[in-house]
């Protein structure tokens, strides 16, 4: 098992089962067919986050009913386009929209993606394994991982930019595009700058135990 703390970036293996929200580092035999990262809106299991050639994975935690998360859809779409690859899924950066809330069922998410013209890869995370992986607490929030061999190495998590300072405290437009800077630094192999403030939005609805 990989121990995770706030100060030490986590390491995990790609495409391996998550057990009770902890990441297992196991043998090839353990990491195969069963879906471990949730499903796409059509119910197909997602078994790998980094496609061939991907050097950076970005998870964007979203909620269909969170106004601030929705207001960030154009910004995330902009970044997705900026780092887009052709054909999709083969580039340096792999973006995922992650819906962790229990109310965001496949049907709800499909409708939401249609309304907001979201065409990027989407994961439903009903067991919130990715939430725990990324230590996400609210939507919108992002996590950036470096792909190192079979491991994902988290280098950034938190807000997308500094437009929202707190609930009700909002700049006319963002001054610091922190997620974008983090991706650029990660791709360049440079130290990744960290967010200058907490993420602002709607609490993720945590599963009741």
């Amino acid at each position: 098992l990989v121990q995770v703390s706030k100060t030490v970036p986590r390491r995990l293996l790609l495409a391996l089962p998550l057990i009770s929200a902890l990441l297992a580092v196991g043998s090839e035999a353990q990491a195969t067919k069963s879906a471990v990262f949730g499903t796409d809106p059509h119910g197909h299991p997602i078994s790998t986050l980094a496609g061939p050639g991907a050097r950076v994975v970005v998870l964007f935690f979203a909620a269909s009913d969170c106004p601030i998360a929705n207001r960030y859809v154009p910004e995330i779409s902009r970044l997705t386009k900026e780092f887009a690859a052709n054909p999709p899924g083969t580039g340096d950066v792999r973006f995922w929209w992650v819906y962790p809330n229990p109310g965001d069922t496949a049907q709800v998410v499909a409708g939401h993606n249609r309304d907001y013209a979201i065409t990027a890869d989407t994961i439903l995370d009903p067991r919130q394994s990715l939430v725990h992986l990324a230590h996400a607490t609210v939507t919108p929030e992002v996590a950036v991982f470096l792909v190192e061999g079979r491991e994902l190495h988290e280098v950034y998590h938190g807000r997308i930019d500094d437009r929202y300072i707190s609930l009700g405290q909002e700049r006319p437009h963002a001054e610091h595009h922190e997620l974008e800077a983090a991706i650029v630094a990660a791709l360049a192999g440079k130290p990744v700058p960290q967010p200058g403030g907490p993420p602002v939005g709607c609490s993720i609805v945590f599963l009741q135990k």
Partner: protein
Amino acid sequence: MKALRALALLPLLATFGMLLVHQSVQAHAPAAAPPSGQEPWSTSQTLPSKSTEPSASSPTWSHDIAPVLYKNCTTCHHPGGAGPFSLLTYADARRRAPQILDATQSRFMPPWLPEPGYGDFAEVRRLSDDDRALLKRWIDAGAPEGDLKSAPHAPHYDATWQLGKPDLVLETAQPFTLPAAGTDVFRNLILPNPLKETRYVRALEILPTPAGVVHHANLLIDRTGSLRGHHPADWQSGIPGMELLMDAGNRFDPDSHFLFWKPDTRALVEPDGMPWRLDPGNDLVLNIHMKPSGKQETVTAKVALYFTPDPPTHLPMLLQLDADDKLNIPPGDSNFVVEDSLTLPVDVEALGVYPHAHYLGRDMQGWAILPGGEKKWLVWIKDWDINRQSVYSYREPLLLPAGTVLHMKYTFDNSAENPHNPHLPPVLVRAGNRSDDEMSHLWLQVLPVNTAPNPPDPRLLLEEAWMRNRLAKSPDDEVSLYNLAAALSGQGKFAAAAALYEQELKLEPNSARTLTALGAALEGAGQLDKAENRYRSAIAAASPADSSGCDARFDLAQLSLRRNDFPTAENESRALLSTCPEDAESRSALGAALLGEGKIEDATHEFHRALELDAKTFAALYNLGAMAADAGQPDQAVTLLEAAVSGLPASPDAHEKLAVAYAQSGRLPDALAQLRIAARLAPSDAQTHFSLSQVLDAQGQSEEAFAELKQALQLDPQNADGWNNLGALLARGGQIEAARAAYQRALAIQPDHAQARANLARLPAAQH
């Protein structure tokens, strides 16, 4: 009885009032940094696990929290409501518990900016300390549900109109496409109204679709459709901008109501006796502030109007204090203070206040110093936020006697530390119309009280004081010069008004509207040649493509009528009708000109055409009524003149003509009543007193008849009929010598006065 007067009794058509409609519209607002020592609130707290057992004393949703949410939150936060999510059910509240905690503890929600204790407002949205503490204890305890059976019933929210079926629904001409992303959007959507006659609006509701993207809205009344006129090609798609300059038209009727909409006050109900007027041809302009939602939105809006048959009995007015002239905020200055003050010329009651600034505003204070020195707070906002701006109504009207000085003091923060600063690094900011310019406005709705029984309208005095205050700050402000001149004109101070219009013309030399207004002021001052000259200049200066010369043409036609120059009046009326849109008053002006020229049939035709266009056209009703009376058709005359009197009760001539018609019908008491009204309205009109004496005499009230006759002859000593009548009254009373003198006076004035001669002959010979 008085000869038929062909002159239409229209009030002077002074182009009245170019009202600044500032109701600006903005984007965000600065909010102060959290107090030191306190964590900036984020939404990252999570709920304690539900397994935490609530203690016996823990509040529960069913028992404690639902009532608080239903009272304070669900007006907006219900399915389909303006709030971004619902808080109607336990599941909703639990889902949002962390945000509820953040938003209420920081007082971000419910939205309420005024500091308690500085202005006593109605419908206070501020959450009580007890309720805040209760919410915190509930969330700390794990947001327990409690016994659902004991929970109150959830309120029901109707998706359509709160006040029931509207009398009229107006809808935006075209949907507005709000982009998915970007800064806030301000748009003016124009809603023409289909009314054929004036209505009085007692309430309105605004329903934007989709709910949630419209932050707030101001509904403005464009009396002349001027905004649409300036954007003939594209008004349907809405007009950008925050501060609109509209042409208020020719009638002094200053903006009087805050038609301000925010999501939690959908229905706007005016106090009794204070509906606002909506005329045919008025446009409503919905000035909306929208926030991009993340997806492209198709925004439409409906405005529902509820009418009352009764015109307003109380006429409030909006006043504005501002220090925009002093806004010159250096970059980096976190404490830039401006002030303004205004002394009230009349007693008023303050009904509501609307403070307004843009992104840099922080602390906003308004107060009044009463003549005795007492200080009354109007409002204090310590942490301005344009996103949560509102109009605040006082719980009780606030009496501010004449001599009260209104004050405003606003503080702006143009430092980089102000998160709402649109410029990083900060730049010099001045007053202006764009969202990243600034404003410093304090609007106050006031109702004049303890009003003197006679004119001038106290609102003219308020307008005068306000405009003088604006000119003291900005001497070359064209709008202030124009409006001050109009306010003086309205008070009958024509010479002073004309001087101000002249001053305004130096700034704007070829303005047809100012030349027209100047002509009207000169006409009021009795300088008819000069007035005519200015009207002709206005017609020459006006663009042939639009209607800017029509007022001058109309006034010129009226002036010719006034001078009994009927051929010119006819020519000008015909020019008016051929170059400007046909309206009832132009038609009846032509009718009056033809009548003056003795072309009775043609005149009758024009008056009837005028009444087809507007059945209440006063001059047409009056003149047709007077013609009927003269033609010995008293029934028809009574009908027409009663309508004329009810349309313009301030016209003494209409009352007098109606009295004639009543008298012809044998209705002497009714005739007497009308004449008494006429005498009250125009005490120095000799003819009214002659008529009064005749009616009184016919009713056997000889003494009063005698008094009225003497008063009439004092006013008009050259009236031979009057002296003859006086002689008859005296002779009947046995005062033979006095009667003889009166008849002789009549004959001295008019030697061929047959009746006086016959009366004199009938007197007993003089005793020597």
